[in-house]
């Protein structure tokens, strides 16, 4: 089995362009996470109902399951946020390198 290779492209980004792309990817991932949290909020709202009467008449088990799923998602988001923070710190370091290059 051969090693994976990056296909040849006519345009390859420069170092500074790659850093910009990385910054953008962090912002986009953050926005994606915000959409997930928002969807979870809407799910809980729909489950509880506008009159706070649980309109779907869920069983006790279903209520517990709903809260379990929200807990799981939030735990995953915590982990993802940590990774994003580390990525941001690393990319910041890279951008500082570029600045030093400009200064020199």
């Amino acid at each position, binding site marked *: 089995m051969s090693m994976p290779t990056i296909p040849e492209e006519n345009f390859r980004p*420069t170092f500074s362009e790659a850093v910009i792309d990385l910054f953008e990817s962090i912002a986009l991932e953050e*926005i994606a996470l915000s959409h997930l949290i928002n969807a979870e909020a809407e799910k809980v709202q729909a489950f509880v109902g506008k009159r*706070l009467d649980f309109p779907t008449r869920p069983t006790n088990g279903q209520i517990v399951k709903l809260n379990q799923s929200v807990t799981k998602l939030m735990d995953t988001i915590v982990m993802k946020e940590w990774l994003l923070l580390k990525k*941001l710190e690393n990319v910041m370091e890279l*951008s500082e390198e570029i600045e030093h290059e400009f200064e020199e």
Partner: protein
Amino acid sequence: MSRTMDSPHQIQDICLRGLEAISQTEIAIDRLLRSLCLQYMAFNNTHVNICSDEKLKDYTKCYLARIVKSILRVQNILVRKSYVYYRELIDRDVKEKVIMNHQAISESLSRDIFAKALITPPCRQEHWHRLYILLRRATNYQARKISLLTSISSIQSHSPAPPYFADQTVTNVPALQSLEYLMNQQKTAE
């Protein structure tokens, strides 16, 4: 936005985009807190049969506490991420506009202490009260944070607040309102 990093303004733009993304997460968290409050209120709704089950109530309390704890963790990371962006902005002569808000951010770091207080097993009324205090602190913090991000992004971009701020009234966080309403109801019942 151009993909070349040839001026300080472009780095500022990148940082602002990051801050805007963080503010979107903050707003989503506010909505989640609001829906948790609704669930909290639903369990105090005596017209619903399901809510007379004490064991289910206890389970729900524990889950709500765990979710709030995770939310606080996410917020803590968001604060640290904001710091990274602020540092970059501060280096670029916008210090006076940002530094006055730092105290509010560092205050938020103490929120973990409250999260730890929630690990204790449920003990009926006390636990509900503790959960209420935590939710109130989280929503208060949300109001401060959204206000901070709104002001910074509008100052920095020299433009009106982004569209997703349009329906947010900073001093009027719905989650907090719901809780105040609930507390008033409880007082009346007592």
